[in-house]
């Protein structure tokens, strides 16, 4: 066997590990879910699926999904781009804090975001006078809140890569600051903006927890509709039809985003001195401040609500977390939910890191060609496929041989790992790709074998990205709700499931406990993100 074919065999063997994982725990369950819809009675009946797409209610759901996601994306880009400039191209006191605060909402459990917004705009809340409770505007605002960090981090990375001298050259040629922005800076940022916008659209269109907690009976998007059809109406054909539509649209979007990203210049991260703000930058800084206030307000109101019950203030809601709630809303105390969440998130992040780093390693090989492109796209799929579909697919396919995991404690961690996998690949991949391959060649020529090259060239550069990715995956798993809501058993719930149960049950004590549990969950996720932020991995949270 010659050297080239031995190398290829090694790559294939290495790729087999995550591929098997993806097939068994993503494609198989999702496929199973879709098959239920297309073969309802064991025979292929596509007509029923087409019939679903003709229902007026489905039209309303599709229309709401489309316009809420589109308007949320537009607002997110408008809010985020100036902030990206401020925190990536200026140096001012508190910049690192702003960078960290901006990322916090992204890892917050969607249920918490929904609860926090409702708390803010409820008739009794601080912004109750605006009358936003139960409106589509409130849902769009919550979606924006959730996704600003995607724009800030992705566009910021592009902004850092623009050589300021290019803008200076334009200014020297007579372009006013506004003309420089329009003719030089924005064209260079465009791939980043399009890439971020397509991912934000994706997240908004597949958002589950936010729409479920805020939409009430009036508003449903495709994701909550799939949930409703599968759990309430047991209409699997309808759910499958919507899932197929979602997968098609999302695959198309991901392909578009990948194309735009490829056409962009490679991100070069040479450190450049970043200037202090001048008077001309005051509007941008004010804008940044306003955005930070917008991001912090729901959290502030959440924290306030957690400290009161009725008219009395204190820590009673936190103390109540040790109980099962008013009229036993829960089967186990909320603290046990926290414990379950932590252990499950830990397991899930280990899985996601193990599989994700192998995928990142494979897609960062310079000589990969077509194969790596396909791999990269394949492992991005979980980003866009409805978590509800994944969760339900798990439920109906992994309950019998060959894979019977019904009673396995690994079921939820595996599902969450699939959801977090794309984030790990996106964090670690760019860092590995930034290593000049000639360094590996130099190490090999000095006598280092492939494993030693990995340990002495790749690892010293990538270890921070690996830890950051693990932390990121942990935070995301902690808040995962879409898939988990299907899989969590009542006697072993995660904290987001506990919160959802509590707000679904009436009673001031249950509501107070939901607030307190949300604060605990948000604080845990935020603490993890703050720790990870200190590692300064530029690719984290970029798309």
């Amino acid at each position, binding site marked *: 066997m010659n050297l080239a074919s031995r190398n290829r065999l090694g790559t294939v063997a290495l790729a087999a590990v995550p591929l098997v994982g993806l097939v068994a725990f993503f494609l198989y369950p999702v496929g199973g879910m879709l098959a239920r819809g297309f073969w309802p009675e064991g025979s292929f009946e596509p007509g029923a699926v087409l019939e679903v797409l003709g229902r007026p209610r489905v039209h309303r759901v599709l229309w709401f999904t489309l316009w809420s996601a589109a308007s949320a994306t537009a607002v997110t880009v408008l809010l985020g781009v100036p902030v990206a400039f401020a925190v990536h191209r200026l140096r001012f006191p508190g910049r690192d804090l702003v960078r960290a605060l901006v990322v916090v909402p992204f890892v917050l459990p969607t249920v918490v975001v929904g609860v926090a917004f409702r708390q803010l705009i409820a008739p009794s809340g601080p912004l109750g006078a605006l009358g936003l409770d139960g409106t589509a505007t409130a849902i769009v605002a919550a979606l924006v809140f959730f996704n600003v960090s995607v724009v800030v981090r992705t566009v910021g990375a592009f902004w850092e890569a623009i050589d300021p001298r290019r803008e200076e050259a334009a200014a*020297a*040629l007579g*372009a006013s600051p506004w003309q420089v922005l329009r*003719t030089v800076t924005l064209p260079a940022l465009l791939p980043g903006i399009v890439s971020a916008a397509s991912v934000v659209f994706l997240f908004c269109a597949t958002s589950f927890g936010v729409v479920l907690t805020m939409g009430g009976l009036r508003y449903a998007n495709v994701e909550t509709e799939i949930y409703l059809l599968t759990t309430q109406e047991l209409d699997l054909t309808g759910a499958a039809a919507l899932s197929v539509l979602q997968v098609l649209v999302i695959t198309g979007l991901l392909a578009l985003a990948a194309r735009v990203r490829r056409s962009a210049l490679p991100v070069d991260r040479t450190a450049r001195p970043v200037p202090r703000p001048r008077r001309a930058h005051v509007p941008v800084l004010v804008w940044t401040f306003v955005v930070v206030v917008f991001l912090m307000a729901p959290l502030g109101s959440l924290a306030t609500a957690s400290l009161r019950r009725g008219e009395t203030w204190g820590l009673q809601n936190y103390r109540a977390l040790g109980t099962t709630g008013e009229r036993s809303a829960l089967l186990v105390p909320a603290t046990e939910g926290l414990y379950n969440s932590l252990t499950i998130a830990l397991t899930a992040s280990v899985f996601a890191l193990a599989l994700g780093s192998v995928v990142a390693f494979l897609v960062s090989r310079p000589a990969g060609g077509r194969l790596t492109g396909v791999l990269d796209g394949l492992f991005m799929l979980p980003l866009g496929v409805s978590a509800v579909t994944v969760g339900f697919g798990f439920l109906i396919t992994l309950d019998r041989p060959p894979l019977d995991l019904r009673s396995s404690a690994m079921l939820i961690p595996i599902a969450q790992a699939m959801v977090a996998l794309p984030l790990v690949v996106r964090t670690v991949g760019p860092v590995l790709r930034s290593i000049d391959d000639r360094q590996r060649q130099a190490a090999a020529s000095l006598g280092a074998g492939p494993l030693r090259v990995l340990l002495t060239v790749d690892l010293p550069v990538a270890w921070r990205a690996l830890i950051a990715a693990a932390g990121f995956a942990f935070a995301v798993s902690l808040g995962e709700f879409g898939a988990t809501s299907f899989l969590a058993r009542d006697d072993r719930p995660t904290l987001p499931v506990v919160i959802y149960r509590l707000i679904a049950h009436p009673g001031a004590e249950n509501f107070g406990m939901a607030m307190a549990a949300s604060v605990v969950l948000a604080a845990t996720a935020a603490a993890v993100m703050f720790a990870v932020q200190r590692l300064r991995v530029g690719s984290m949270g970029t798309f």
Partner: protein
Amino acid sequence: MTGLEVEDLTVRFGATVAVDQVGLEVPAGSVVAVLGPSGCGKSTLLRAVAGLEVPASGSVSYAGGDLAGVPTHKRGFALMFQDGQLFSHLDVAGNIAYPMRLRHSPGHLSRPAQRQRVAELLSLVGLEGYADRSPITLSGGERQRVALARALAVSPRLLLLDEPLSSLDRGLRERLASDLHDILRNAGATAMLVTHDQEEAFAVADRMAVMRDGRIVQSGTLDEVWRGPADGWTAQFLGYATVLRGEAAQRLRLLAAPDQSWHAVALRRSALRVDPTGPMTATVEEARVTPDQIRVQLHVEGAGSLPAVADPGTDVRVGARVRVSIDVTRVAPV
């Protein structure tokens, strides 16, 4: 006619003084090179002239008008960087036409006029037929030519060149340096060039200023600076091989050129030549053959170890005794 005048200019970055009370003149129609090692503050000086750095004190004026408070885009200068900084989302013609497309700018031209001007500029820099190419497909030298055409597009009052040829390899640099000289003359441009490469400065400029640690240590025409370097450091930076001081300098003067007077002297490598009729004697310490000549290191009696050259075929084995002559046009008193 007055062009650029820099008076007493100081630029600080925190506690560091990057440019220290610098005075410099670039008369209209001339090309002045600011020559200095990296980190001497020459690029900061250029950026301050462009309006990209705010001086702590001093003034920059052009044709008598003070430029303090005039933003970069209203100065009517053009700036060309070491790596061109072409706009990768525009083709070559789009890059060159960039300043002509800016509304409300004095260089704004109508569409047909733009096309004609782009064609003129492409032929000026020797890139006819490149209009539709993308900058990514160009070689380093071609990119710099496009950057130059773009900078010349609106006939700037002053062209600022930041190490325009430094990123190119040697052969290309030499060719492009002489092209740059001709292009600037043909365009009648007023230009300020900063570089660390003395050959680039000599090839392109009419006048030069030598900069060190934020200060201008010497300025004048090329010939003035070349013939009378201000000090030993300047001489070596200009490419003189050795500087002799004190007794060694006096001995060399007495031996070789008693009619000259100097206290210290800078010698080019070719100032001393192995010559059977020469007045000095020396021992060969080292010899190395190059395509044009033999480079030798000699121990010259009374003056110490010095570099010299010998014609190809001369017997200069290590240890050989030779006679040496000095070419006084290749030495400069310091």
